[in-house]
């Protein structure tokens, strides 16, 4: 099975769209376990933990001791996408119960605190990300790595071959763009006491 994942990852990397769909069922259950602990902690679990768990998972799935750097970058990118799917599934499942309730707001990340894990905004964010991906797929990848997988800015920069300054700058733009899609009236927030 692990050999299959490697093959599929390579295919996906080479731009074969079917490979992703074939990969998901293989990796999804394990990543969901990981995500569950992420969600259960109900707070920023500490970046180290999330990424090191993904890394461990990666090594396990690939069944090898040393991972090739490029493979690793792809796996992280892939995991980040899966994580986004998991968190959105989670939010959809939660939807009915949470609406109108006094559920505790647990930010997706401190930098993106306006999206709560399991909240309606999470579903809206995902739609906005799909729209944004059509214009600027790189930034979506950044958002996924940084906010869904929990990588640090440095790790994100590393995985994407960019400088940290670029990551910070681009994410600022991405957040503004996404926020505007979700909150149609930002001015109201600025004038609210």
């Amino acid at each position, binding site marked *: 099975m692990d050999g299959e994942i490697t093959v599929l990852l390579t295919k*996906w*990397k080479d*731009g074969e*769209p079917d490979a*992703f*769909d074939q990969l998901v069922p293989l990796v999804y259950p394990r990543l969901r376990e990981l995500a569950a602990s992420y969600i259960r*902690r*109900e*707070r*920023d*679990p*500490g970046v*180290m933990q999330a990424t090191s768990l993904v890394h461990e998972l990666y090594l396990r799935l690939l069944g090898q001791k040393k991972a090739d750097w490029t493979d690793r970058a*792809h796996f992280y*990118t*892939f995991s980040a*996408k899966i994580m986004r799917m998991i968190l959105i599934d989670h939010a959809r499942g939660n939807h009915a119960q949470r609406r109108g309730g006094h559920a*505790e*707001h*647990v*930010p997706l990340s*401190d*930098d*993106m*605190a*306006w999206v709560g894990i399991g909240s309606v905004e999470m579903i809206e964010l995902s739609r906005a990300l799909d729209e944004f*991906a059509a214009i600027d*797929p*790189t930034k*979506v*990848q950044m958002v996924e790595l940084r906010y869904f997988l929990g990588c640090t800015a440095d790790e994100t920069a590393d995985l*994407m*071959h*960019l400088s940290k300054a*670029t990551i910070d*700058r*681009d994410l*600022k*733009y991405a*957040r*503004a*763009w996404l*926020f*505007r899609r979700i*909150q149609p009236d*930002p*001015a109201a*927030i*600025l004038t609210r006491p």
Partner: protein
Amino acid sequence: MPPNPVPPDPVPDPAERIFHDLLDVPRDQREATLQRRCAGDTTLMAELRSLLEACEAEELFGSRIVREARSAAAHPGRLIGPYCLDSLIGRGGMGAVYLAHRDDGQFEQQVAIKLIDMPLATDLFRERFRLERQILAGLVHPYIAHMLDGGVAETGELYLAMDFVDGVSIQRFCEENSLSLRDRLALFLKVCGAVQFAHQNLVIHRDLKPDNILVAADGTPRLLDFGTAKLVVPTDSDAASGFTQLGLQAFTPQYASPEQVLGDPITTASDIYSLGVLLYLLLARVLPYELKEFTTAEMLRVICTDVPPKPSSVATMSHFTIDADLDAIILKALRKEPQQRYLTVDQFAADIQAWIDGRPVSACRGNWSYIAGKFVRRNKVPLAAAALLLVSIMAGIAGVLWQAHVANRERQRAEARSQDLRQLSNSLLSELDQALKDIPGSTGAQKLLVSRVLEHLDRMAADAQGDRQTQLDLARAYTSLGGVQGDAYEQNAADTPGALKSLGKAIALAQAVVDAHPSDTEALRVLATAVEDRGEVLTTAGNPENSIAALKSAVQTYDRILALPGVTAPLLLEASTANQVLGDEYCEDAGMADNAAGIAMYRRSLAMDERALSLDPTYMPARRGPGYMHLHIGNAQIDEDSPRAREEFRIALKVVEALPAQELAKLNTLRLHAVLVRKIAVALADVGDYTTAAPLFAQSLAIYRKLAEADPKDTRAFGDLKRVLDDAATASEAAADPVLAAKPGQRQQNLQTAAAFLQEEAATIRKLIALQPGNDDPAQEVANVQVRLGAIQYALGQPAETEAVSRAAIAVLQRIAMKSNASPRNLDLSVSAMLRAEPASLRNRQQIIAMAERGVALTHRKRAYFLLELAQALQADGQPKQADAIAREGIALLDPPRPGDPPTRIRKLLLAVLITH
């Protein structure tokens, strides 16, 4: 969903580029820049305005939500353990403090809850947190905010619950109430009391500053934040095992001592320094230093080198003035070198009290040296140890070991680990224990310490197989631990089985190394030490045969080492000590009572000292050694052959007198000298030469009186004083005894002299009882003295009021001598006094015989002295035949006198039993 292509350098679209540029220009220039850059493109302009607005709103909204989420995490009603949070009081680097109440509905107790937010807290950290919490929970003092509870909240944060203190900082309290100088000092003294109390309980505050000392409206100060700072300051081993280096953030620079800034060990002296800064601030209203930049370089320069100005020279207080004495007191607390400051908070406080009372303060008296020392050859320095102790408790000794363990597994092996271990075994544990002894009421801490250390040693031992250095380090650590367990300083606190177990582990570890490397001097030495300690513990366990066997084995191991190359003077002294300990054990009254074997060991010991001296003629322990050894030999002979003993004492005295002047001035040497003078006097009196003995007693007495006066808390000095008084009284009593002295005309005068000595002795013993309550021996000694005094007063014709005293004293003597664990000495103290009790109707003759018989049996019929007491008891009971037989048995034990030697006291008294027959 295909992978997103990753361009090497993404080129933003024009709107995005302008967006970034706009964020870089100041807010008030943004509009102008926007107009210029868009150059009339209104769509672009609208898009950018919308994006900028969204960006600003996103940040604001995000931070607002973060804030709300944080307070939601502590929203009113949230439960932390059994506490219900009410409101946020403040936030600090380590987490937030909330006002809370206990949620059991029983009583409304307001508490402060400190949540320590450390998401990455490791098990190691939690373990340490738990250990320290245990110590802190014991810190109950009216001026310390009591730590009530602590634990791990459901969300994983560590929490501490403490008394909620409703007050203002001590500085604000002083200013707002315009306190007078005296009131400020009085308030400060209360704070000192609390800090001293903490020190006695092994806790250093480490962050004393006005904000941590709140004063309630009624003027009661309360110290806060005990133990929270200590949770994060790392030790060297922390750094080694990957702990974050938080040391420099964990204190407040303005109040930090030089050692804190330098990262040196923090001791109680650091708190004394911080108290000095506080007092400076309270009196002068400014801090001793001005820190402007808070850089490490500035802190190092200012705190570690700049001498602070006298408080009086910078004071801005108008309604009182600071005099030179107060300047001196404060500056003494602020000395750069910890050992130059007050040694304890109590001394600091005592000086302030002296100033308040108008007495001279010690800070002005210049330097005085602290003379410390012990009569034993293995010296320990309690003060240094006390300082060390507090450091290690703080670091958590278990932590040290744990980290050694972690290092053992995860890091490059040998270095860090064995260094930690060596530190532990060579100094930490034994000094820690010594320091614990010096702090009353620390038995609990000692027990906790021992169990933690043992746990971790066992864990490490499981990993150590085959690694020579680790095995030896562990053996040393087990040996130190065994010493702590076996060496009780509070009655019944010794854990002999535990000590034997630890020493057994040490021996097994060392033996394994020795088996693998038979000529490994270091391993043999570790083995010898552990075996010797085992022998010493067995002694106290009342197991003389096993003890002798162990000590013999230690001596043999040393013989093996001494046959190998590389013998040094210190090694010879170590071997000499082992021989001496075995000799002592042979001479033990209730043990082998084999003085000849004991003396043989002492002679071996003497030869080793001499060999050491030939290797290194300047090695001082080897120069002093023969003095002690001849004293030991003489002691083994004094009861039965005082002329020979006197020769040994004389040789010892010559050894001592030949020591360099500097050495002679030392306390230990002074004591040795006084002991020898006393022993020579005793030996002279033993053969009836009271005239020569008297001035020697006087000389010895003068030295002891001076030592006892120098330190009114020195129990050893009072013990020595008591002994010389007893010896002098015994000599005068003997001089008045018609059997022993020929001049009955001086009887009255000798009796009066004896009575004077006995009275002073009783007073001295009472001081000892006050210093060491709960010890039976001094009580029995007082009773012994009272009965003897009663007998003398009876003989002098003043019996009236003494009979009741003697009766009560005899009751004490009987009670103690009848105990199942009574020692030969207990029996001697009772029998010798009761035999003499006056009026004779006080003597319960059957009981005296029973006690004397027990004394004879306990000493295996090998002690002429105990046989004499039994013979006298039988004689007094009208059993002359039995008395005669016992006296003959006693005489047979004595060496035949050498030609020209005068008859000894014991011989005369034994013969007296025969003659009257």
